């Protein structure tokens, strides 16, 4: 019954008018950027971080969370109607969603996507509410050795689950860890890699890095591609799915929710991975695999439920362990730290109103999305006709204001440009930026825990394998690495990401 009590507390916080307002702002903004291709949740959340300085921690998190899962709803709309994935996690929705639209069944596709997402949102909210407290309890017992091993496992899992070359992803993680060390060493007070630049003494701001690597690099890459986006909007006539649609879709929704909830929790997981995995599952388990790619409603229902479930359950490691599983969560941790809250298992006991308020707001946000989204479809699609030449200077202006306002220092804009360049080069060389950002966030934490663990064990490195929980994480990390090295599984992994190409 404790969970009921907690949820009541959470809803009490979430339905206060001001929090409802920020939830609404968050999901609307999320839908907006979900619709617009080339603007992702990472850059948007990074842009809005300065705005959250003046908000209460609860309102800030509620709004930022709304952006993340709101983007999953928005991304599906454009995938279905115009075959343009507004969001990476809705790429697979294009495959069958757009085909359904061409057959005049855009309405049912949109409705199933929205209803599936809503169902997944409800279930995953419950998953977060039930799974997080016991996890946080366990996490409270973690010492430095456990934390270090957990981070090793997390980073390895993140590289395995990321697409592209594994070895390059590991290299990017290490590069991120190293870049995260720039600044004052907390143990010795030594300035590391600062080159006598006073601005670097506090380290490189990760918001700046994230905006450069994701936002700026993406804009430059978009500008390279010639050709105007042409938009043929299918008219949405009837919205309601038929009885047969429901019959075919409900199992896919269930499976997608399950797949998404599990994959969201894993490090490196989240909406993107969830949607791809769910599409694979649906195609494999279907009695009519030949219909996939030609307008199978399962191909819309599954991934759309999965990406929303994944977006929400990826909050679990962030809320309970203080460890981000993907770059969006890393930004959330940044938002908390700006508010003076150290993320970790103690948040739940010290600030229950923050924790449960956020969870309750997720459910409310999902309700808002399903109610708002369908009637507003026409408006969202109109936005697509906005040419990119208006869009990108506007995004740049917001990013520059956001970065500059972090400390009112032009140096931050310079650093953002430097990381924009690095992000652009990495994109050309097919090196994924996401593992680097995770490493960047975890760098100082990892070093700190490694030092403490080694100090406690008097320099004995076997401590990571003799403490049971720590050993479990280390063994899991090794197993993952071995598994991925096996040719058979490697092939499956490549297949899973092949749809994306």
């Amino acid at each position, binding site marked *: 019954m404790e969970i009921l009590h907690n949820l009541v507390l959470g809803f009490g916080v979430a339905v206060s008018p001001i929090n409802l307002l920020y939830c609404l702002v968050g999901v609307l903004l999320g839908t907006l950027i979900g619709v617009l291709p080339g603007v992702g949740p990472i850059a948007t959340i990074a842009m809005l971080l300065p705005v959250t300085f003046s908000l209460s921690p609860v309102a800030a998190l509620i709004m930022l969370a709304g952006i993340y899962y709101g983007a999953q709803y928005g991304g599906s709309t454009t995938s279905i109607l115009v075959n343009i994935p507004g969001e990476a996690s809705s790429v697979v929705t294009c495959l069958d969603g757009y085909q359904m639209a061409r057959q005049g069944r855009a309405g049912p596709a949109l409705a199933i996507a929205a209803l599936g997402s809503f169902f997944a949102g409800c279930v995953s909210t419950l998953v977060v509410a039930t799974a997080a407290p016991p996890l946080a309890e366990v996490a409270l017992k973690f010492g430095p050795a456990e934390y270090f091993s957990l981070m090793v496992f997390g980073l390895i899992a993140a590289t395995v689950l990321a697409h592209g070359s594994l070895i390059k992803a590991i290299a990017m993680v290490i590069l991120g860890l190293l870049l995260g*060390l720039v600044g004052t060493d907390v143990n010795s007070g030594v300035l590391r890699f600062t080159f006598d630049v006073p601005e670097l003494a506090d380290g490189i701001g990760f918001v700046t890095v994230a905006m450069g690597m994701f936002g700026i690099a993406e804009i430059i890459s978009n500008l390279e591609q010639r050709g105007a986006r042409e938009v043929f909007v299918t008219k949405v006539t009837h919205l309601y799915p038929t009885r047969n649609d429901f019959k075919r879709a409900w199992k896919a929704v269930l499976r997608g929710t399950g797949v998404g909830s599990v994959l969201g929790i894993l490090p490196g997981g989240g909406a993107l991975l969830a949607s791809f995995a769910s599409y694979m599952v649906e195609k494999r388990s279907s009695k009519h695999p030949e219909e996939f790619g030609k307008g199978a409603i399962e191909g819309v229902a599954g991934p759309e439920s999965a990406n929303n479930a994944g977006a929400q359950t990826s909050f679990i490691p962030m809320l309970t362990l203080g460890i981000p599983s993907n770059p969006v969560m890393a930004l959330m941790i940044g938002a908390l730290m700006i508010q003076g809250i150290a993320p970790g298992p103690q948040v739940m006991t010290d600030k229950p109103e923050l924790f449960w308020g956020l969870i309750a707001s997720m459910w409310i946000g999902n309700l808002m999305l399903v109610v708002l989204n369908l009637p507003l479809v026409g408006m969202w699609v109109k936005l697509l006709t906005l040419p990119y*030449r208006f869009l990108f200077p*506007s995004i740049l202006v917001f990013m520059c204001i956001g970065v500059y306002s972090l400390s009112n220092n032009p140096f931050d804009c310079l650093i953002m440009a430097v990381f924009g360049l690095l992000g652009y080069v990495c994109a050309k060389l097919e090196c994924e930026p996401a593992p680097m950002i995770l490493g960047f966030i975890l760098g100082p934490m990892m070093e700190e825990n490694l030092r403490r663990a080694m100090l406690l064990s008097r320099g004995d490195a076997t401590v990571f394998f003799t403490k049971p929980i720590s050993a479990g994480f280390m063994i899991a990390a090794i197993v993952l690495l071995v598994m991925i090295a096996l040719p058979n599984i490697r092939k499956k992994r490549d297949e899973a990401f092949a749809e994306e190409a």
Partner: protein
Amino acid sequence: MTIKSPKDFWAGLMFIGFGLFFAIWAAKFYQFGMSHSMGPGYFPTVLGGLLALIGLVVLLRSLAIHGGKVPRFHFRPLLMVLGGCVAYGYLIGPAGLIIATAVLVLVSALGGHEFRLKEVAILSLALIVFSVLVFVKGLDLPFPLWPAMFE
């Protein structure tokens, strides 16, 4: 010896470069310490070495396994976008938000495919009005609007 996968070749070189830089710099200037009391140089030296090693593996593999070419670099959008951001940062203090925004929009628009002065002017104006209303008036961010001498 031929490079079979240019993308990996250059990625490997990049990793080796970063790795060696961090490792050598840390080893040279920061105390290494011992495993039970690590100095500030310990973690970066080890990680930098590891990164260089992985870079070497990526590089060697690129000589053996075929892979993609490095796509062409487009310098105009790159320079205009990056330059616009840097200009914005260094202009907003001395010249104020209005001039900085106009410069950023103008410079970055030069990086796009189509450049129509009239559109850029209207867009700058709209973004200036929006920034002033939302960020300066609404959120109270302490940005000057005009160069200090006019205020």
